[in-house]
């Protein structure tokens, strides 16, 4: 229940989630792709589903000299293309009448003062009580300016003389590029907004299947007793992308690399959901306390030797993806021809806790792999070498529980079954649950859920300061080893369209394991 929802008697009992409250949503970087393709369609779809609170106003803040109409036209065009539920003119008009554009440079203090006046004016005209949600979707180099100017304009604190109103900020990734920059950004944020009002977005956590990890583990009695080193041999987390550096992504990506772009945030978040202890409750801090313990327990690969042993970095060379010839990473648009940036990374992660001692978590992420898929597979230990296992041929495979995050969300379980016939032969069979098959209705986009949660003051699916910093600490050690030792830790090569470099296979082979074939 939202803070002010308590006094609305019609809210009580109506919905079973935290209540999103009406507010002004101010989007910084409003002319960008994220706003047009994700944020506005998410708000629109919430309106279609009747979930968007009445009285939500949207202000786009950006540098270009646009009018409200120009801004709305562009948003409408994209919404027609990408909206999950199609485009209903009446709902759109209703939403668009509450969409405005505010032109200002991000460094211009005066622009923020005008913004404050405009927000007050809107509240006065439309009866809003002064709730503000600031969404920083600009390029990361402007994060500091935006936060500091919000503070100077008095927008980062809840308004005086208002009853239980709030001011919150959502910060898009990348949240820093190193531990030091993340700490700096956290300091700036902390000097501007309280931690409870800070929402560091990781859209992977808004995905239906990511949320389902906790349900799978803690709402089914059969899994949790086996979710430990006694029964689980290892875990694999794979995030494969078939795309390369299309659409000018090379410029950003060549500075970031796979480790910082995906592993530091999305994949470590997934790892922490898989490995965390049951939280004491489902509150934001209850869940995040347990997640951060996992990240804090990651064994640090803090010497070049350890990095060489436990991490493989790679770049694709020219190859073939989906029947199409594609260039190598260093030949991609806006990529340095001598680039040392990894477009593929594979890690062996060890979690030094009682539950996971000795159980490796293998994480890999790569561009230009054969297909797009993000999956977590939990590989159970083999059965004792008696009975069927002692027979010639043994048992074909261990049990594997697979949680598919995207694109074909679902869960499957591999188990062994007797083949029909007079002899005893076994084959693995797959029990498979597909969200799309069982639930015809499409799931809300991650941004829909996350925007609604921020309006409701529920930070469960957002990263906390310590989570972000602990993740950077782990990543920085690896990165530093790569940088300090330069070419001592080589970059492995693999043909585009394959499943990554041979070195990644060898890392698992040393442990007597193989990567799962997706």
């Amino acid at each position: 229940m939202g803070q002010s929802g308590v006094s609305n008697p019609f809210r009580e009992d109506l919905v079973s989630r935290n209540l999103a409250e009406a507010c002004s949503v101010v989007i910084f970087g409003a002319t960008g792709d994220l706003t047009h393709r994700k944020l506005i369609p998410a708000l629109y779809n919430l309106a279609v589903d009747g979930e968007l609170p009445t009285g939500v106003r949207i202000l786009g803040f950006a540098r270009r000299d646009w009018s409200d109409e120009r801004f709305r036209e562009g948003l409408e065009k994209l919404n027609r293309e990408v909206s999950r539920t199609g485009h209903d003119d009446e709902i759109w008009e209703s939403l668009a009448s509450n969409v405005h554009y505010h032109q200002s440079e991000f460094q211009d203090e005066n622009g923020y003062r005008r913004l404050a006046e405009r927000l007050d004016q809107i509240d006065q005209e439309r009866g809003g009580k002064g709730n503000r949600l600031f969404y920083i979707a600009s390029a990361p180099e402007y994060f500091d300016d935006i936060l500091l100017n919000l503070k100077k304009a008095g927008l980062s604190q809840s308004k005086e003389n208002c009853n239980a109103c709030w001011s919150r900020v959502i910060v898009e990734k990348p949240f820093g590029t190193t531990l030091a920059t993340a700490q700096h950004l956290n300091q700036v944020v902390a000097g501007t907004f309280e931690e409870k009002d800070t929402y560091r977005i990781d859209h992977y956590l808004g995905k239906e299947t990511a949320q389902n990890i906790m349900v799978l583990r803690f709402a089914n009695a059969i899994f949790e007793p086996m979710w430990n080193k006694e029964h689980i041999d290892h875990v694999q987390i794979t995030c494969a992308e078939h795309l390369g550096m299309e659409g000018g992504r090379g410029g950003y990506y060549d500075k970031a690399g796979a480790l910082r772009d995906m592993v530091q945030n999305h994949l470590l978040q997934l790892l922490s959901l898989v490995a965390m202890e049951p939280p004491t409750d489902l509150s934001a801090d209850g869940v995040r306390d347990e997640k951060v313990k996992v990240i804090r327990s990651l064994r640090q690969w803090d010497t070049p030797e350890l990095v060489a042993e436990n991490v493989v970095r790679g770049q694709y060379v020219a190859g073939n993806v989906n029947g199409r010839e594609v260039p190598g990473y260093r030949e991609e648009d806006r990529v340095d021809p001598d680039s040392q940036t990894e477009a593929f990374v594979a890690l062996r992660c060890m979690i030094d806790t009682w539950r996971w001692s000795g159980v490796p978590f293998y994480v890999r992420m790569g561009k230009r792999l054969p297909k797009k898929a993000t999956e977590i597979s939990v590989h159970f230990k083999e059965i004792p070498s008696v009975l069927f296992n002692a027979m010639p041929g043994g048992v074909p495979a261990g049990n594997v529980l697979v949680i598919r995050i995207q694109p074909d969300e679902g869960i499957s379980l591999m188990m062994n079954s007797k083949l029909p016939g007079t002899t005893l032969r076994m084959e693995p069979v797959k029990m498979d649950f597909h969200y799309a098959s069982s639930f015809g209705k499409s799931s809300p986009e991650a941004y829909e859920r996350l925007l609604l949660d921020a309006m409701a003051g529920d930070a469960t699916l957002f990263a906390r300061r310590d989570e972000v910093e602990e993740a950077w600490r782990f990543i920085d050690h690896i990165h530093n080893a790569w940088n300090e030792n330069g070419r001592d830790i080589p970059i492995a090569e693999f043909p585009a369209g394959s499943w990554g470099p041979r070195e990644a296979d060898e890392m698992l082979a040393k442990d007597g394991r193989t990567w799962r074939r997706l």
Partner: protein
Amino acid sequence: MSATIPTEGLGMPVEVGSIDTALKKLWEADEASTNASLMNFLVYTEDPQRLQKNSAMVQGLTREHACRAVLIAMNRKATEVKVEAWITAHCHLAHGKKSICSEQIAFLLHGKSLGRLRNTVFAHLNSDLPLVFWWQGEFTDLFEERLYRLLNRLIFDSATWSDPLAGFRRLAEAREDTKGRMITQDLSWTRSYFYRLAVARLFDDPMAQKAVPEIREVRLKGNPAYRVAILLLLAWVATRSKWKPERACGDEWTLVARNHKEISVIFEWDEEAAPIAALVLTAPDCEVSITREAGSPHLCQSVVGQGHRVDFSGPADADEAEGLVASQLSRGGKNTLFLTVLPRFMELLELASSKER
């Protein structure tokens, strides 16, 4: 095959004793399709003419709710006692890719034979999956304890009942018999879902929130065929606001608040209007209004007062039963709010019936 009851589209006629074998063959014949099922979905009617229409409705419902559908129509007027059965599968492309199919078994039961409905139901369920039972029409003598105690969710539409008071009393007995385990879902209640959501959202407005204790008038407009839906909506408003029914005079009723202030309720009926066409709550300094044009998929919502006005368009509930059932199945839940509102609703229903006497 019945001569007067349309059965086209129900699929392949089968002997009742070989339904399982026939279903197995049906699936074996098409390896490209996936048989999906999240529940046993049973649709029961005592109007055999509806059987075909129900099959078409299930076809639509299975787009979002994979199930084993069992359609049963009871032809109680027939003199000969016999059973006819058909099987088919409703298939849809899931996200434009895989063909997902739900199987359907349709039964036409002729003649009076107590226990046959129950036995037909129990013999054709998918083990372990929840049993959702859509009872169409009045609760008759076939709505009996040995049947309903095994239901997980009972769906019905009180708008179709000739005597809602008697129907709800029968429902209360059934709930008592099942010790509240059976989840009940009245489509008349579902009809007001987005109205209730809109009221709650509009009263998030701080000015409207302050006005709640000052509400003095409630105006309700609707189609007389959906009186129960409108009374349920009023019962919800009254329960949340802690108002009690006081007296009724034609279409002008009086409710009383805890502080003894009176609230005037004015009904307006129009046979051309949407099932629920308007709800307007008026306080001295504030008016909250939700309206819907007949056939429109949107609710127009507004809060007006003290120099400000907020207008908003939001979704409206479906008019037809299929859409209501689909949205209800999507929402799931135990529907405890409906049970909370029932006592006040029964008081209003009694007030309505005393007015009619």
